[in-house]
């Protein structure tokens, strides 16, 4: 047993609070024997005061100015003794110049939140209207970091085996139909783990869970009077703090334990956790925005500024975090390491990640130090890193994002071309052939696991709406339908919006199945959007960022309304897991590498070995050779017919003395739309098959 450290005794006292010089690192507030170590960076401040509060009290209990000898370099640190860790809130007051044109915005009247705060207080209960008279809404708090993980650690599932499910923590179970005991919370997701397991997904990607203010830019809809909030949360207050309002126990300050418990139990169910992280901007907006933290601590370091001190807006949200400043870069690194090590998070999806590759003047870097650091970081080395490879400043880097062999991307081109092909546009068969291979045109040097394939995501139409609306219908956002994308590549199947016409609804159901089938047979990492497995609708709204209501929530009653689609999705996910030939780290080589007599992939049309890549074509088929899969597998044949009539497809041989069985036929009514391996019937005619209008057929080779 070690004796207590000899330097843990107070040297100073002020108004009954005892303190001493602290440790410069780590930054933030850390519990140390008999006290709390506070450490804060500011390159341009002339002085710093620690402000301590009792939880929820407006007036501080003490303000302790850092003695000059407590500053080393640009770091102020101090240990304060005998604090009640659970009841403490803290902030800082900074001295320094107010000179916006030179980039400085110090203001002693503001109490600022610690950028490294492990918990941020102020929005403890979701949607509880704040007291707008408060001078300061967000204060740092301390977190216990002694969670008992037992044997858990990040799962490290091979990337090629992932099936991602994109989810909003609140939206997933907030709807009364979810039937959980703690709706809209981390604990609510925990209650739905059996559902996720049965669905077959093995990675859940959470929309932002770093503390944000749901009341930011809140307003009432001019017609309906309903509150429109910052529901999605792409606006970070504290990069190290989990969203308290997403925790059933947030009111007790236990969100850290609740989130860790969720992650631990997801891991036990074989499901990874990926976080959607927003490092491109903060919740402080531009010069008109609130002073919360970074702006008042060291404006010039944290933000990319114009030469005369205004905020560059590459994020479309007012400001741009100065990610390639060495100090900010370290903060991002510290943050991700913290989530990986302390919360056992398995991966990260970076919102508007192209901003992370801009230099301190906003120009794109060819070798961005932040992206390189993340790619080679020792703690993050097994984490999945996924970029949204564009930003609001016009940088579009799908296929060219600086990857260092590590980064994957949301493949926006997969989304666009599959949508066009599925709705029957001509001229896309060639591109589809590339997309289903994992987009070698974009990721030749990285492999297909660089491609996160998706047809829908939170941003845009849901799958059902993709085939129910030709146009966005965002009136409920209160912006006269001006917000949201106009390039949806959607098709309403003959009627705009909900329909009672059985033919229209039948077509929609079939189109949704086509989309899910195409996604699951494509090489790359498939990503599903929450609710698409049973036809969630946003009634044509393609930008539901502000809807903490039925529009943004998942209505679980739809699982009863659309059991066929749910069954189809589950079976399709299962099919992917069963067939390693669908999943690989490497691209097809279009040749026979193993002596099976067949190339790893061959393309076909209505005639075997004659794919029709002509401009008017809507048909494509391909055969994957089972002998080329990493582990023993059957050969698979996929026929896609996006023409409005059924067409006979001449079949390539199943090979190896085997025959073709029907695994999937989206033109058939349930349960004949998809079969489990044991139930799948053999084709009567092994030489050709009729593929129905606008439908997909998947065959599997088996011994008769």
């Amino acid at each position, binding site marked *: 047993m070690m004796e207590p450290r000899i330097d843990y005794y107070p040297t100073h006292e002020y108004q009954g609070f005892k303190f001493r010089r602290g440790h410069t690192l780590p930054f933030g507030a850390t519990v140390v024997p008999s006290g709390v170590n506070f450490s804060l960076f500011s390159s341009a401040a002339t002085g710093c005061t620690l402000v301590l509060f009792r939880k929820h009290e407006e007036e501080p209990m003490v303000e302790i100015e850092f003695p000059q000898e407590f500053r080393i370099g640009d770091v102020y640190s101090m240990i304060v003794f005998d604090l009640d860790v659970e009841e403490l809130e803290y902030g800082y007051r900074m001295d320094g110049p107010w000179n916006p044109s030179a980039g400085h915005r110090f203001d002693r009247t503001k109490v600022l939140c610690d950028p490294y705060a492990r918990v941020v207080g102020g929005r403890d209960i979701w949607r509880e209207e704040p007291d707008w008279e408060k001078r300061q809404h967000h204060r740092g708090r301390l977190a*216990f970091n*002694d969670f008992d993980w037992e044997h858990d650690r990040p799962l490290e599932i091979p990337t090629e085996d992932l099936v991602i499910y994109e989810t909003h923590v609140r939206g997933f179970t907030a709807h009364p139909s979810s039937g959980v*005991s703690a709706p809209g919370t981390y604990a609510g997701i925990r209650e739905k783990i059996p559902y996720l397991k049965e669905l077959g997904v093995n990675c859940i990607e959470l929309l932002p869970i770093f503390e944000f203010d749901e009341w930011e830019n809140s307003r009432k809809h001019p017609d309906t009077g309903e509150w429109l909030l910052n529901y999605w949360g792409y606006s970070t207050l504290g990069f190290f703090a989990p969203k308290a309002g997403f925790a*059933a126990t947030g009111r007790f300050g236990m969100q850290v334990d609740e989130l860790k418990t969720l992650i631990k139990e997801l891991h036990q169910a074989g499901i990874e956790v990926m976080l959607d992280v927003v490092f491109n901007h903060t919740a402080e907006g531009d010069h008109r925005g609130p002073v919360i933290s970074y702006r008042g601590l060291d404006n010039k370091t944290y933000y990319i500024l114009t030469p005369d001190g205004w905020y560059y807006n590459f994020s479309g949200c007012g400001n741009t975090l100065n990610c390639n400043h060495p100090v900010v870069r370290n903060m991002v690194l510290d943050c991700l390491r913290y989530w990986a090590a302390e919360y056992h998070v398995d991966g990260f999806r970076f919102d508007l990640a192209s901003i992370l590759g801009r230099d301190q003047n906003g120009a794109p870097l060819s070798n961005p130090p932040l992206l390189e650091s993340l790619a080679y970081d020792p703690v993050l080395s097994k984490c999945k890193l996924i970029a949204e490879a564009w930003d609001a400043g016009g940088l579009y880097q799908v296929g060219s994002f600086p990857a260092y062999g590590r980064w994957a991307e949301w493949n926006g081109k997969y989304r666009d071309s599959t949508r066009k092909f599925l709705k029957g546009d001509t001229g896309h068969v060639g591109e589809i052939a590339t997309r289903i291979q994992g987009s070698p045109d974009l990721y030749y040097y990285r492999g297909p696991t660089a491609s996160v394939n998706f047809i829908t995501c939170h941003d845009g139409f849901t799958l059902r709406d993709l085939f129910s609306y030709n146009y966005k219908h965002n009136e409920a956002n209160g912006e006269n339908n001006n917000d949201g994308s106009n390039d949806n590549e959607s098709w309403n199947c003959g009627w705009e919006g909900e329909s009672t016409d059985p033919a229209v609804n039948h077509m929609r159901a079939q189109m949704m199945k086509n989309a899910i089938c195409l996604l699951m047979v494509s090489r790359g990492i498939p990503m599903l959007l929450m609710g698409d497995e049973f036809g969630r609708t946003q009634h044509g709204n393609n930008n539901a960022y502000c809807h903490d209501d039925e529009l943004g929530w998942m209505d679980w009653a739809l699982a009863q309304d659309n059991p066929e689609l749910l069954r189809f999705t589950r079976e399709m996910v299962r099919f992917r897991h069963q067939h390693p030939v669908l999943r690989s780290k490497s691209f097809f080589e279009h040749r026979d590498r193993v002596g099976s007599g067949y190339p790893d992939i061959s393309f076909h049309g209505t005639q075997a070995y004659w794919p029709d890549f002509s401009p008017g074509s809507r048909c494509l088929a391909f055969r994957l050779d089972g002998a080329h899969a990493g582990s023993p597998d059957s050969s698979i044949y996929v026929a896609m017919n996006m023409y409005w009539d059924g067409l006979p497809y001449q079949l390539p041989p199943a090979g190896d003395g085997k025959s073709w069985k029907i695994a999937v036929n989206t033109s058939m009514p349930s349960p004949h739309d998809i079969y489990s391996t044991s139930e799948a019937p053999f084709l009567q005619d092994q030489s050709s098959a009729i593929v129905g209008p606008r439908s997909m057929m998947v065959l599997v080779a088996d011994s008769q």
Partner: protein
Amino acid sequence: MVSVNKQGNVTVIELEGSIDGKTAPQVRDEMRPALEGCTEAILDMTKVGYLSSAGLRLLLLVYREFTARKGKLMLVGVSPDIQAVMSHTGFLNFFTLKDTQAQAMEALGQTQ
């Protein structure tokens, strides 16, 4: 805060009030001598209105120390609200809960 009595071989500890960062050290100090050397114990939480993070941690720590020396410890009378919090934060998994002292006695193989 803490009252102790012995029923046969079983030490029964009744806790009262809020257990949080302020009171936890005191509760711990008061419980420690009672639990020393005993192998079977019941923590009766019927009169506990609130358990903070620090309170939950204290409970788990006591539980761990106790079971480490092969003791059996049961929680009794945990209110539904506290049970929900313990469930959401993962603490519930570690404990054995019974509704009443009698049930806990029975589970420990004792008759009153």
